[in-house]
């Protein structure tokens, strides 16, 4: 489908946007023709969401111009963009579950007759609208809460069409869908195309991108790397564009690959609501890196091992003995520690002192074991050892920088002498100096015999720190890579090698 393109529906030129001095978009150009599916791909944090929010009126750009239907526009908010004809289908739907399909579709602009909502007219119009996109099976008077995810997505799309959307943005539309529902979405996308609607299609999944799009734009670190015709593109080439940066930072030496330590924890064919058929081994002295895209099950894996949302199937053995990790306490007793991804929401108790934060886990689980004074003394030593910089032990932790907060959290866990440590994005939101301090700490823990699992979206970190890398995709393990793997290897596994599917 590379027919000569008519006048673009949407033209972005030189779009730039910064948040708190951090440049998230820089000089991005992009256009979408009527009836075109234009895919936008990139790593986590490449700037896709920000760009979509600019197109849909959520943000205003700091630089550059947005032209819609041939006119320069500055959308003053999502409603403004909607009125102009830009619809957006978010990953999280924005529907009222207790209302009917028709009520949701016409929410906020219900057809009115003699001052009252014209219910029958609304139902009729909704039926027509649904029929026009081939969705005759969806009853207009059904309660939205009773519909499946795929049908709710159709309602969202109908909602945008009821506002005469000419450009639809779909943000990871298949993330919540089952395999057979994806096929239905494909059909719907094609019918929207036939109506001359332009689509901006954001997805991590290269298979879909190849199946659906006419052109693909690759974003990386807020810049547009390239825009290619899908027909001429290859998956390998895209992956290379999505990553491709030089490994510049310094990482501590890895473990000796020829002399692996004993297996500390092994998982056999385990699963739960978010994970399927997971098998892996954590070895003493090694850092096992977990790669994959957001939502691929990486955090779910750590949370299963820590007993937050335990495995419901499969087997976990600890030093050869089967264990059931049913709660964080059980995991802690088994010698497992978990440094969470979202430090603010799950890592710190913000208004308590540095010392109280560092003592939290010891107090909760091993309270009776050691004397008060000895325990406090040990935690003080740990805080000094991880080099927390604070005005004092009694300073509230929320006043510390992210890096120092993370060190306090680390001290909390080290106080328990864990033999297995799970790190979820250990250096997210942390300045460069503290970052390498944390890298060194993680490596030192491994050298002292701990088994480390480290989840990271930061590919250089993942490659620089890991002795082995397991890449996850869709709740499964997509593959395992040895030390020395490249960013392309990781990304290829993370997005799925899909050339066959597209051919």
């Amino acid at each position, binding site marked *: 489908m590379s027919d000569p393109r008519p006048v673009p529906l949407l033209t972005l030129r030189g779009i730039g946007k910064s948040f708190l001095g951090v440049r998230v978009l820089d000089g991005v150009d992009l256009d979408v023709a009527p009836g075109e599916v234009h895919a936008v791909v990139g790593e986590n944090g490449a700037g896709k969401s920000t760009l979509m929010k600019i197109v849909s009126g959520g943000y205003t750009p700091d630089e550059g111009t947005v032209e819609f239907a041939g006119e320069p526009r500055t959308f003053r908010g999502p409603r403004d963009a909607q009125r102009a004809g830009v619809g957006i289908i978010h990953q999280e739907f924005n529907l009222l579950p207790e209302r009917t399909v028709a009520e949701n579709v016409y929410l906020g602009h219900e057809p009115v007759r003699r001052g009252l909502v014209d219910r029958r007219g609304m139902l009729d119009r909704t039926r027509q609208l649904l029929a026009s996109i081939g969705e005759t099976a969806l009853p207009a008077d059904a309660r939205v809460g009773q519909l499946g995810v795929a049908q709710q997505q159709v309602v969202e799309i109908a909602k945008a069409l009821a506002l005469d959307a000419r450009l639809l943005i779909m943000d990871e539309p298949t993330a919540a869908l089952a395999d057979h529902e994806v096929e239905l979405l494909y059909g719907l996308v094609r019918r929207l195309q036939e109506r001359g609607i332009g689509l901006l299609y954001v997805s991590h999944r290269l298979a879909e991108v190849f199946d659906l799009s006419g052109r693909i734009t690759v974003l990386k670190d807020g810049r547009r790397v390239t825009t290619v015709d899908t027909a001429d593109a290859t998956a390998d080439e895209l992956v290379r564009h999505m990553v491709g940066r030089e490994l510049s930072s310094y990482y501590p030496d890895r473990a000796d690959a020829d002399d692996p330590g004993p297996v500390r924890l092994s998982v056999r064919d385990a699963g739960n609501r978010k994970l399927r058929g997971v098998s892996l081994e954590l070895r003493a002295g090694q850092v096992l890196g977990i790669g994959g895209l957001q939502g691929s099950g990486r955090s779910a894996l750590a949370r299963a091992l820590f007993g937050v949302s335990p495995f419901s199937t499969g087997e976990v053995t600890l030093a050869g003995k089967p264990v059931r990790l049913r709660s*964080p306490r059980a995991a802690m007793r088994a010698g497992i520690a978990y440094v969470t991804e979202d430090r603010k929401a799950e890592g710190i108790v913000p208004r308590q002192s540095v010392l109280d934060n560092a*003592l939290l886990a010891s107090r909760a689980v091993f309270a009776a074991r050691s004397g008060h004074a000895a325990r406090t003394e040990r935690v003080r030593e740990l805080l000094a050892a991880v080099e927390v910089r604070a005005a004092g032990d009694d300073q509230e932790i929320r006043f510390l920088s992210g890096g120092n907060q993370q060190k306090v959290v680390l001290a909390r866990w080290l106080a328990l002498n864990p033999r297995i440590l799970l790190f979820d994005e250990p250096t997210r939101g942390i300045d460069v100096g503290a970052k390498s301090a944390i890298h060194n700490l993680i490596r030192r823990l491994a050298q002292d015999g701990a088994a480390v699992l480290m989840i990271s979206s930061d590919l250089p970190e993942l490659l620089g720190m890991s002795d082995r890398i397991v890449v996850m995709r869709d709740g499964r393990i997509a593959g395992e890579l040895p030390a020395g793997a490249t960013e392309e290897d990781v990304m290829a596994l993370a997005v799925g090698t899909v050339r066959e599917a597209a051919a």
Partner: protein
Amino acid sequence: MQTVQPRSLPLRLPRVRPGGVLPILLILAVLLVLVGIRQPDFLAPPSLMSFLGRSAPIILLAAGQYFVIVSGEFDLSVGSLVTAQVVVAARLIDSDPARTWPVVLLLLAFGALVGLVNGLVTTRLRVPSFITTLGMFLILVGAVYLWSDGAPKGGLSEEFRRFGRRAFEDVPLLGRVPYALLVLVVLAVAAVLLMRSDFGRTLVAVGDNPRTAELSGVRVWRTRTIAFILSGLAAAVAAILLGGYSGVSFQAGAGLEFGAITAVVLGGVALGGGRGAVVGAMLGALTLELLFALMNFYGVSGALRSTVQGGIILLAVAVSATRSSSR
């Protein structure tokens, strides 16, 4: 980010940090000065001692309420629990001195049980504590009426009443020291020690961020349930003192839950949990009582009590909210 100074500053200046007790001490001092100007006799040992004894129940209730609030919940049931306790005590003792101690133990168990139910319903059934304890409040009110057929029956023994109205006479310097004051001092010290213990620090951490606490191995439900039990126990002790002091009526505990919450907020404890000291909460209660005494001295109508309480709650919460958002 704050300026980073070298670690360990041994020098301790009085800290005006949110949740500290300095503000409430200042308010208390100002009120004492005002009372001293208007009614100097009040500050003489005998009347001061009896004032403190009279204030013991609300101070204990404030401490109990503190445990619940600092863990991120509410206990609205304590007022009606006090009433229920007093009425139950009167009926069971029925003026028979021999039954005093068994009934005292029973009241403590009753208080703990009510707290346990509040705690379990809130944490295990996930009913918001505001609703749970409001329900408990209504259940207790109704149950007491039903059980006593509309009018309190029986009577308290003198042995029971002495906790609330007798005193050590002829104490050097102080003169008369009410038993209630002694009970208060002992329990206040216990509360302070409890808050310094592992349990106390964990309780505040739970109120500050229950997710983090849970992921650090804290059994959040258990911690909060214990807080409710402590509040129930505090209500039981308060009921014993109040029954002794003012006798049996259906009004014995009326409005005490709001008094306790006002006191806690006044004492610098954050609603929603995670910040504040139990000493602050108890000083808040004392300040509130002193304020009412002062209003009395200045001839302000007693009918204004609840209006004043309401004003204090709004003001204190507004002050702490603007302070925490503008830091």
